[in-house]
Structure formats: C-alpha cells, structure tokens
C-alpha cells in the first residue's frame, strides 16, 4: 500500500489505488514566525501515514489545516479527487475528514451513545424534535461492537475511566464517517491517540486501525517510535516546519528517525543514567506519612531523599496521579501528613508547601498547568506571586518578572518565545519548559512531577531529563509519576508500583541493574502482587 508516486491513469486505473489526499506546498506563518514552509505529502488510499517530528515541527498545524481549523497561507489540498478547502471543522467532517484531538471532547454527563452520535442527531429525528432513541442506541452499539469495545452505550460517559473514554472518542472518529454518514473513504486524523490509552485498550485500538484501513486512511501523529514503525505504511518526518524525509518503515529505525527529527541521533544515554546518584544522604527531602488520597485509597507512606528520583508507576486508574496531588497538597487528602526536609509533618497544602520549597507539575497541562491565552511571563511567575514577584506592599515586580522569564527562556532554550508571547503560540514541549521554569525559579527542594513529558517531543524530553539530573545534583528530591515505562525505569532510583490506590511493590532501580519493562508491567496488572507484600526485583 505504498503507491506514493503519482500514478498515470492509463497504467493504473482503479481510483482506490491513487492518493486519497494530496497536499502540495502548504505554508503557514503567524506574524514573523513561519510554522510550515512548502510542505507536500500524500496519503495513499487505504493506508496508515504517520507524521513525526519534534514539538513545534509543524505537525499540529498540518492537522489544524486538514481539520478545517486553520487555513494555509499558500498551497493546495486535494481530497478524494476534489479540491479540499474546509472553512470549519464541521465542513471538514462533512467532507469525510475526522479528527481525534489530544484533549478529550466528550461530554461527561450524557450517555455514551449521545457522544458517539453528537452532531448526527438529525438523522434520528422523528416528528420534528423527537429523537428516536432506540435507533441511536442501535447505531451506537454497532460502533462500539465494530471497534471491539466493552462499553455499555447507555451508561453515563463520565462513569468510564480516561482510557476508555479515549477509546470511545477514537471509535467515534474512526467509525461514524462510514457507519453513520456513509462516507466511502474517510480520512481519520489521530493526534497521539495512544498517549492516554492504557495497555488493555491499546491492543483494541490497533485492531481498529487495521479494520479502518480496509476502506479508509489514517494520518497519525505520534511520539512513540516503536508504534510508528509498527503500524505505518509511510512516515513523513517534519523538522522546523519543513519536510525532512519520507520513509517506509522498513528503511529506517528508531535511532534513525530520532536523528532525522532532531538533526542528531538520539543519545544512547537518553536518561543520563550515568548521572544517577548511588550514595544518598540518610535524611529525607520529603516524607509522606499515611497519605490517603481519596476515601477508597489505602494509606501510603513514602520517603524521598535529596538527590533521589522516586518513580511511581501503575495503570491509569491506579491512583498514582491522585497520590501526587495529595502529596503536593493540590487536592487535600483524606488523611496523612507530609514533612518537607526539616519541617514538621503537616496536612499538605500547596500554598504553604510551595513557599516551603515544593513544586508540582500537573499531568493535564492545558487544564491545570498553563493559561494558554496569557503571556509566557505570567504563566512563569504564577507560582511566585506571594514572594518573588511582588513587593511587601503588594505591588507586582514587573521588571523582575520579565527579566527572570527571559533568563529562563534562554537557559531552557524555549524556542520562539519571548516573555510577552501568549502561551498558546508555543509547542507542548516549550510550554512544559515554562512550567518547569516556574518552579526552578523558586530553587525547590522537592519536586512532584506528574507525567512531565506527556505530549513533549524527543528533543525537549531529553532537555527536561537533563534538567532533572541537574536538580538531583543540587540535592533536589524528586517524585516522578509517569505512564512512560522507559522514562520511569531510566530516571528513577527506586520505583513504587501502584494498584487501585495502594502501593503494591517497591522496586530498586540502580543505574547498573534496572528492572525491565516486563517486570514492571507484571506488577501493575491486577492479581500480580497483593498489597501486603513488598516485591523486590533484580534483573
């Protein structure tokens, strides 16, 4: 299925062999910043095409153009043989291009079937305004069955966990064009679809991809190179808004792709494991005692030493994010205390903890981490309004704020950013650097990080890892909660595995004897270890 060269109609008559979508010379600039220059690519019919590149390379812009959210400054697109110029997302959907967004767009408070058929209600109207509920439920069932999901379409959407909701969203984008709207050859845009899926749902997802590929095409953005190589027919590498390469999966590998994306081969020591501290001081940087994040959770006691990275892993519903929020005091726990360094144990509260030297980076960047419409400097200074950036009389120190923001932009190489640039202009990786800078400015002693590299490109990831190692050199204690196994293994001195709100295993991970992915996954799955025993693993 890699008929990517323009085919002559005479020699290759069936239209399905041609390209479903052809983009030619797409260019886009926001003011002086060029985000896309002269990008041309094809999506062959019935194929899986992947765009890879660092954040800011232009992938999202391509997606925004194809889904009708942005218009290119120059360039043409042909979809199914017709010129394709959608002026809105709705128009793109009507033409047969659907998209799964990185952030979920499901309405929680309605049954699943309403979400699956959102915007299609008119098809089920009887007598004007009445909706044929039974027909909707039937149609929705067909979607979830085709997608292989174990979902009751009449249940409230919010009752399903994040991963299942993501699956529902993917099923909607993949299947409504054909099953409901009767589009013969849809194009489905998937923006990092698997980053929010847990392992159980990933397999279902790949089955669905293979199913959809029988009649339509999929265009992916993903940072997971193994996955990209596995499912793609064609891979396009974007770098700094231009096309860097067009490859078949059999002519490349992970290192090669990383090299093309960042202009260098990915360092073998990606996680700087050589810099992991062996000897740790005997005192604790942070000690959490009997923390119960929610009513159903067990008591968790943990200790992180200065210079140590304590990893916390588990499936998406394991309660690790909730534990992070509780330790940082972002959401008050049901019970338990936290002591920072020499401080007395207290019920955690982020307002006090932040002043005492704790920093917290949330997983949901766009909801909890940054205010997209506000300038970089404002997003940077938000954690230090009570001390660093205001005078005792309450006046804001705008000069100091600007200078400090500028300093961090330089130090962390936040690309195409100035202190006054609105955050939404930055790519995910650069946004995350600003969030990191927010706490670095405070010279923290403890950092609680929840998926600090989610939606961050390979280059920025490595820069973040380097900063984390620098911090441990300075004696910062770090709690690292992450869904990325390799990151968890590579960075942590010690790894806690959680299941249903309880710590079920405490795995040492010294630089020369790291546990394997398989070991950890086995511990994460229910039934692998009871909550009472402490499992030690050596590899």
């Amino acid at each position: 299925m890699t008929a990517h060269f323009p085919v002559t109609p005479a020699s290759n008559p069936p239209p399905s062999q041609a390209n479903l979508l052809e983009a030619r010379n797409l260019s886009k600039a926001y003011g002086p910043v060029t985000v896309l220059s002269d990008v041309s690519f094809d999506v062959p019919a019935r194929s899986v095409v992947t765009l890879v590149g660092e954040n800011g390379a232009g992938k999202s812009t391509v997606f925004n153009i194809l889904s009708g959210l942005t218009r290119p400054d120059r360039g043409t697109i042909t979809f199914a043989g017709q010129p394709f110029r959608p002026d809105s997302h709705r128009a793109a959907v009507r033409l047969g291009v659907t998209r799964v967004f990185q952030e979920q767009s499901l309405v929680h408070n309605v049954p699943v079937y309403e979400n699956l058929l959102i915007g299609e209600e008119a098809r089920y109207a009887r007598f004007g305004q009445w909706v044929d509920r039974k027909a909707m439920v039937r149609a929705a069932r067909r979607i979830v069955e085709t997608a292989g999901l174990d979902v009751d379409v009449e249940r409230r959407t919010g009752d399903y966990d994040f991963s299942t909701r993501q699956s529902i969203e993917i099923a909607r984008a993949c299947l409504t064009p054909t099953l409901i709207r009767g589009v013969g050859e849809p194009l489905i845009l998937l923006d990092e679809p698997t980053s929010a899926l847990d392992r159980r749902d990933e397999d279902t997802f790949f089955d669905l991809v293979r199913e959809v590929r029988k009649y339509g095409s999929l265009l992916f953005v993903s940072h997971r190179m193994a996955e990209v190589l596995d499912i793609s027919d064609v891979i396009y590498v974007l770098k700094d808004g231009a096309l860097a390469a067009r490859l078949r999966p059999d002519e490349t590998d992970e290192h090669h792709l990383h090299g093309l994306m960042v202009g260098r081969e990915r360092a073998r020591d990606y996680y700087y494991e050589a810099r992991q501290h062996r000897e740790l001081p005997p005192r604790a940087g942070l000690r959490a005692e009997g923390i119960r994040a929610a009513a159903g959770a067990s008591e968790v006691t943990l200790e992180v030493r200065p210079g140590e990275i304590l990893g916390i892993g588990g499936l998406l519903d394991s309660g690790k994010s909730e534990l992070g929020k509780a330790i940082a005091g972002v959401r008050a726990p049901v019970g338990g205390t936290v002591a920072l360094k020499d401080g007395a144990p207290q019920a955690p509260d982020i307002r006090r903890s932040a002043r005492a030297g704790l920093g917290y980076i949330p997983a949901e960047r766009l909801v909890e981490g940054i205010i997209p419409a506000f300038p970089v400097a404002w997003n940077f200074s938000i954690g230090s309004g009570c001390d660093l950036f205001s005078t005792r009389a309450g006046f804001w120190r705008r000069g100091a704020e600007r200078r400090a923001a500028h300093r961090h932009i330089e130090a962390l190489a936040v690309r195409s950013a100035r202190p006054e640039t609105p955050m939404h202009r930055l790519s995910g990786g650069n946004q995350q650097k600003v969030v990191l800078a927010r706490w670095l400015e405070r010279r923290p002693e403890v950092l609680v990080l929840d998926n600090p590299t989610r939606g961050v490109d390979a280059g920025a990831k490595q820069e973040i890892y380097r900063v984390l190692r620098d911090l441990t050199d300075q004696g910062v204690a770090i709690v690292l909660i992450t869904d990325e196994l390799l990151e968890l293994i590579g960075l942590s001195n010690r790894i806690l595995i959680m299941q249903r709100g309880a710590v079920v295993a405490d795995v040492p991970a010294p630089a020369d004897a790291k546990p394997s992915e398989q070991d950890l996954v086995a511990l994460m799955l229910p039934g692998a270890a009871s909550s009472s025993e402490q499992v030690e693993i050596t590899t």
Partner: protein
Amino acid sequence: MTFSLSPDRPWTGTPLRRILNRFEPGLWFPIGVVLALFVVFSLTTSSFATLRNFSAVSGQAATLLIVCLGATFIVLMGSIDLSVGAIVLLTGAVSVTALNAWGIGWLVIPFAALVGGGLGLVNGLIYTKGRIPSFIVTLGTLSVFSGIALTLLDGRAIQFNAPGLETISIGQLIPRLPNIALWAILAWGVVVVIGSRTRFGRYMYLIGGGEQVAQTAGVPVGRYKLYAFGLSGLLAGLGAIFAVARLGAAGPSLGSDLLLNSLAAIVVGGTSLAGGVGGVHRTLIGVLIIAILDNGLNLMGVSQFLQMIIKGLVVIAAVLVSRKANAGQVIK
C-alpha cells in the same frame, strides 16, 4: 499610562503594530462608540454639547463609575456581582440612619465604606466557603439587602441633616466639575493601578483566566476572591454615600438602576463575563457610553420605555461586535 498589561493583547508583531497594540486595539471600538454617540447627540439636540450638560452627565456617571470599579474585578475573575445596587441601597439607608441618629458628620464616609465592605464580605464568604455560584449568592443577597434597606427606610425617602455634607458630591473644587465626578476619576486612577501593578490585580486576571491553574500553582484563590468581593462592596459603599450626598436623601429607588447599568458598562467596556479578559481601565469607557446614552436619549425626549429597549440593544450589539476576537469559545 499605557494599557499594555492586558493579557489578551500580545505585544508581538511589526514595530508599528506593537506601538498600536500598546494601546490595545480592542479599546478603539468602544472609544469610537463614545465619539459617535457624542457626535450624534450634538447634532440632534441643542442642549447636549453644553458645559452645563457635561456637568450634569459627569455627576450622573460618577456613582455608576465608582460602583463599577470593584464589580469589574469580580467579572474579571470570572464571577458576577448582582448585588451592587442592593449594597448601595442598604449602605445608603444605614448611613443616613446613622447620620441622623448619632450625628457622625464626615465620619459617615469611612462608615459607609465599612458597611459596604462588610456586605461585600458577606457575599464573598457565602461564595467561597459555601461553594455556591456567585450568580446565585448575589441574586439572593440582592433580595436580602434590598429587603433590609426598605424595612429601614420604611419605604420612604429619608433626608439627612448634616449641613455641608452635600458639598462632597455637588461642590466644585474644579469649576464646572462636580466633586463626585472628581472622586470617581481619582478612584478610577487608583483602581487602575491596583488592577495593573499589584498582586491583587494580577491574581484577578489569573483566577479569571485559569482558576484551576492558579490553584495548582499555589495561588490562594479563595482568599483573593474574598478580597475582591470585599473591595467591590467597599466601593459600592463609597458610591452609596456620594450618591446620597448628591441627592440629599436615601430613598427606595437608590441604586435601582445599577444592576443593569453596572453589568452593561463593564461588558460594553470590554471585560468578558468569561473572565480573564479586559480590565478596570476599560470600564471608564463603558460607563461613559451608558451615561451619554442615558443623557442623550433623555434630551432627545425619547420615552423611558423606548430608552430601555435601546439600551438593551446597545449592550448586546457592543458585545457582538467586540466578541469577534475570541470567537469559538464556549458561551455560558
């Protein structure tokens, strides 16, 4: 004073663009409306463009401006205060009663500020501690405050007997400019500085733009919400005593037009009800639009009922036009 601090207007772009942006391009539209109203009323009525009338307009607009200053912060942080009119009424009633009973004289000014601030704090406490939407809280206190005030007044207007007190409003330190307008402008200046140069002001933007983000970063969100309601009440209290001094009495209709007018002025000025966008500096223009419209239509002899219709349409039209910039956001 430059207004470049507003977060909805980045400073990026060509140098020329940047200079224009320093004055917030979004401001040109409401300023244009003020000028247009000015021209229309000057041409259609003979009495509009007179010094005497400007004196009158500034006196009428002053109370509205003072009251709107605090309420703008509330809207900026994504909440709403429907009770400012009722706070004005109750503070007016309490102040006149206190003035007549104890003869506190000039001390009535800080007294009114305290009463207003206290009522604002009541709103804020119910809102933050009870975790009830501000719309509901202030809708309730709107009724409660009004009821208490009308009980105090027994449904009648009560005059105060404090000779000379009226000069704080109708005296003219600057010829032709009633003092109440002078105080309003001074208060506006102070509050603009608070909005753009202080921690309180910054937190208002942050809470309005992303309350959860602010909370996660350790901003004491609840405390600052309380401060904002306190400040709103305090300024409403000051507005009340200046209005009472101007009218010579506190009556049942005191502040009755403030509910619509304050929200209209804030929104027409360009502060979004969604929060995080706009600012106190813009509210001055909104107040001017509402006041000039009121005055001009009166001079043209337009009936009260038709005036209501026109004012309502102007508010909707102003928001429709200014909304283009942030199209696509969720409207509640």
